[in-house]
């Protein structure tokens, strides 16, 4: 079987050795959880409990705020202690604090909703609208929205994203090895819901064991194909993955549905099976806790709303020279200002870096070497966009197609002058969009 890929991209150090062979362990439940009402793209969820309420595992805590939004469920049983506002990662966020009684009492609604055979497409879609499932790779796009394409956008292919091209992260890798059966169950459900004929499971071919495992689980599904992808960043970026699997270009400014494709994250796909077949909404996830700044790197199952402090304790505590925390992987993850913030549905990784690994070299003037142009996976000229953005010429930045940037960070990575290219382009994008709204 050939290896599929896209044009452009970079080779990043994998740094996955520390955790790729470690089976998933369960993080001891914290004494209290803090459920953010803002765990997805779209409107924040609205709390439907009040202080003092007794709640159970799987109970609805936050109701989706609009169609593009998602429910939030409790990951513990216990008592609502506090509902308060906190500024997290630059956004005002409502947190619901729940004291864990340690009983793990299941909510009475947690029961199987049916099987792939006896549920209709519409029933699956409606159920998933309640499930709280979002894209768990980072963006947090609600799954039921993805599964509701307009009439004029026929979908013929589903891609399950197992590229995991971010360095350090191994959570999807372990999920495929240990929960392959559930992933395939989820894929069948989404396939039925969309009415598509073809399902691809795309996996970078540095994860041979995962490819074999998924091939094993899909043996009787003739329409599910496990495809090996070239090891290259950003192989898991939506548009690049769609191109690699189907050779279709998502149009500039368009969505996967414009080329008849829906892409689903690996963990989200498993969550679909967990909800439909077993009734459990999205309250837990697998997270890779790793990096030079943590004592015992691990792949750990965490309850939604667990503070990073608690997870760090579970992973043996911080190294003495710990200096920087990244939510997600090192290429697209966000640096966090402190350890008090709670985990969410999209906390795929916690990367703790020590002083040495956190070091970012000083940037020097652009030498116009053109490496950023050679490797840009959307074929932009990052050096020029960044140059115009830095000078405040936003119209020029727009003319150079700043808005097409997928912010993968490959340009900043490759730059020999260590220029913060994607950072400047990001600023340009924000300013261009702002001026459009005016």
């Amino acid at each position, binding site marked *: 079987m050939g290896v599929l890929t896209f044009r452009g991209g970079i080779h*990043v*150090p994998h740094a996955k050795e520390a955790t790729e062979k470690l089976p998933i362990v369960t993080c001891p439940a914290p004494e209290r959880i803090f459920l953010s009402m803002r765990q997805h793209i779209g409107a924040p969820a609205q709390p439907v409990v009040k202080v003092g309420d007794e709640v159970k595992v799987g109970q609805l805590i936050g109701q989706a705020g609009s169609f593009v939004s998602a429910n939030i469920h409790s990951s513990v049983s216990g008592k609502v202690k506090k509902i308060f506002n906190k500024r997290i990662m630059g956004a005002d966020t409502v947190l619901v604090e729940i004291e864990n009684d340690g009983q793990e009492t299941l909510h009475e609604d947690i029961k199987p909703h049916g099987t792939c055979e006896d549920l209709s497409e519409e029933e699956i879609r409606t159920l998933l609208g309640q499930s709280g499932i979002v894209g768990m790779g980072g963006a947090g796009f609600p799954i039921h929205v993805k599964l509701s394409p307009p009439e004029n956008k026929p979908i013929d292919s589903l891609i399950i994203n197992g590229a995991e091209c971010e*360095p350090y992260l191994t959570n999807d890798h372990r999920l495929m090895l240990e929960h392959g059966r559930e992933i395939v169950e989820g894929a069948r459900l989404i396939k039925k819901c969309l009415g598509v004929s073809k399902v691809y499971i795309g996996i970078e071919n540095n994860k041979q064991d995962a490819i074999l495992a998924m091939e094993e689980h899909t043996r009787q599904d003739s329409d599910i194909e496990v495809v090996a992808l070239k090891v290259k960043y950003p192989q898991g970026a939506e*548009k690049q993955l769609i191109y690699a699997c189907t050779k279709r*270009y*998502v*149009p*500039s*400014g368009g969505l996967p549905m414009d080329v008849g494709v829906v892409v689903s994250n690996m963990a989200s796909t498993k969550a679909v099976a967990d909800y439909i077949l077993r009734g459990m909404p999205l309250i837990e996830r697998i997270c890779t806790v790793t990096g030079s700044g943590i004592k015992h790197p691990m792949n750990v199952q965490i309850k939604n709303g667990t503070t990073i*402090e608690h997870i760090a304790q579970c992973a043996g505590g911080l190294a003495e020279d710990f*200096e*920087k*925390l*990244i939510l997600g992987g*090192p*290429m*697209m*993850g*966000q*640096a*966090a*200002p*402190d*350890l008090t913030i709670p985990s969410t549905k999209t906390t795929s990784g916690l*990367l703790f*870096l020590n002083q040495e*690994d*956190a070091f*970012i*070299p000083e940037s*020097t*003037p*652009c*030498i*116009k*070497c*053109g*490496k950023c*142009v*050679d490797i840009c*996976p*959307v*074929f*932009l*000229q990052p*050096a*020029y966009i960044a140059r115009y953005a830095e000078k405040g010429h936003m119209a020029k930045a727009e*003319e150079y*197609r700043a808005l*097409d940037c997928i912010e993968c*960070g490959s340009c*900043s*990575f490759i*730059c*020999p*002058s*260590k220029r*913060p290219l*994607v950072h400047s382009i*990001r600023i340009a994008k924000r300013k261009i969009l702002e001026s459009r709204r005016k």
Partner: protein
Amino acid sequence: MENLIVTSSPHIRSTRTVKSIMGDVILALVPASILGVYYYGTHAALLIGVTIVAAMIAEALVQMIRKQPVTLHDLSAVVTGLILALNLPPSVPLWIGVVGAVFAIVIVKQLFGGLGQNFMNPAMAARVFLVISYPKLMSVFLEPMTHAVSGATPMALIKAGEMAALPNMMDSFIGKTAGTIGETSALALLAGGLYLIVRKVINWEIPVIYIGTTFVLTFLLGGMDVEFSLYSLLSGGLFLGGFYMLTDYSSSPISKTGKIIYAFGAGLLTVIIRLYGGYPEGVMFSILLMNVCTPMIERYAAPKVFGGAKK
């Protein structure tokens, strides 16, 4: 625990630096430099050394006067000095190297904003400056090994139609002919050029298309003569220019399409000057002419964005 380091993504960087790129260019030119010294003697070695040191001092002085950080550590001044020296006839007095280095660094590079801002290749512009200012000194070449003053370079012989007087093809390939210190050995320059392509310092497009265009057009327009075309390929500054000067980052286009147009244009100009112009050699002027075309090429050769119509 508070006040962790917060920066925007990505949080890792490649190990490639400007210094390592410049270091690779220097390394790639070591074979040609050693051969140059071997062929033309210790004065060539002195000239290389003096020109490099002059370039470094000029760079440091300008930056100190302009109260900017001194960036000798990025090795770009060394590269400019070295390439300029390899473009000098081995017989010129040392002060020619100094004048050329100062012109390259101060006028062409620093006055236009320093590294990455120059619109012409500094070494090539300096060579042209020297050729025009000191035409006599800059046109005396030496025979290899004997160091006797050469009657004419292979390019001049080709121009004059004296094909019988040319050195044999093998000597032309290994560079055992009269010429500037570093331009004569196609073999050494090719080895270094391949190293630069493998190390991803340069893309293959510019040297391959430039040298290829020059060869093919020389063949087609020069009377379909294979021997004539091969001599034209191996003599003169085609390899030094194509691998090390036409590829200068800041004076060449950044996009792939741009690079192709640029390299083709340079090849075309080289052939026109060589076959129809007054000078025997066209590499120098073709590179400078294409340097100034770069901004225009860039404007029309932007890559087609993923999933989008060309703007």
